[in-house]
């Protein structure tokens, strides 16, 4: 059965540099987050109190920032805890290496089993620590977080590429409707 005309995807939208731009934007965002995370202790050590406070506040909304659960730089804790630091670092690495693993224009995500498999070590490390079975360390928290972050990039980048196409397609349809009238 032929597909309805509403499902038609203009081939103009399928190519171009759009995926590269999306990837560049996500990479820039991931690197910005990493930079803020590492800048906080450096600013605090340098005596830039207000800037350091702003950097810590940026992560304060999404992380408990307990010093005893965080890596330290120049005597000050990073702006995010060890698990979050691993997660963001892994995500940044995953996004930067993404073009080596998959074509930038790919809009389909890997099977969801990979996401669950990547989340399992973090969940295990967290729950065993909570139950007192296993004393998790900075290294275990950051490595399990990094694995989850890196795999999450494989879902986020194609999703945002697809979103950018959806936005472009809508603009195309609006333009087509306008020219019909």
């Amino acid at each position, binding site marked *: 059965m032929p597909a309805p005309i509403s499902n038609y995807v203009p081939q103009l939208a399928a190519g171009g540099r759009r995926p590269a731009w999306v990837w560049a934007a996500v990479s820039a965002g991931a690197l910005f987050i990493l930079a803020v995370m590492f800048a906080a202790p450096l600013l605090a050590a340098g005596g830039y109190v207000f800037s350091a406070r702003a950097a810590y506040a940026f992560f304060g909304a*999404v992380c408990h920032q307990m010093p005893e659960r965080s890596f330290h730089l120049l005597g000050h804790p990073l702006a995010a805890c060890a698990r979050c630091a691993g997660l963001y670092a892994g995500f940044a690495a995953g996004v930067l290496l993404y073009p080596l693993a998959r074509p930038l224009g790919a809009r389909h995500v890997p099977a969801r089993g990979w996401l669950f498999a990547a989340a399992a070590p973090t969940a295990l490390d967290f729950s065993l620590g909570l139950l007192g079975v296993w004393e998790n360390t900075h290294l275990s928290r950051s490595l399990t977080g990094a694995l989850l972050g890196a795999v999450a990039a494989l879902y986020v980048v194609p999703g945002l590429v697809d979103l*950018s*196409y959806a936005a472009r397609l809508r603009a195309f349809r609006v333009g087509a409707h306008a020219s019909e009238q």
Partner: protein
Amino acid sequence: MNDKMKPAIIGGVVLGVLSAIPFVNMVNMCCCAWAIVGGVLAANMYIKNSTSPVSTGDGAQVGAIAGVIGAVIYLILGVPLGIVAGQAMFSSMTGMFERMMPPEQAAEVRRQMEMQQAAQGGFIDQLPQALMFGLIGAILLVVFATVGGLIGTAIFEKRKGAAGAPPPPPPPNFGGPAGGTYGAGS
């Protein structure tokens, strides 16, 4: 109403209210968990109501709309509630210290906390700073709700043929028989 709006409003209200309630919002300290839950919930509801397979881009869009709605609720409800809860926590903590500590030590702690609170000022004095931090939190809610929408679509969309899915392989006789039909009539 757009078919994306209803799930986005429900997801947005859930994430906004849960992120605004003091103490309950501490769950957000685990990678903005309420925002991710709101995005996943919105994507799940959208997938259930959609007759055709939902692409990850659509899921991200629903998550982002839910994030914006949640962020507005968080700014309206969460910022003033946070200031009020901070003041309430001050009185409960001083009461706790007075019960737990020797009187002179408790008085010293109380004096220091009162000095700190005096430096922060009252509700109106704290509002600009709380709004600034609230805006940062609101932006993060939108970002993480979008990620939640993406992850929700990856988890819950089980139908084949979403817009982003790879195309199916061509049928075996696609393009005619091998070698073509040229000259077959002669």
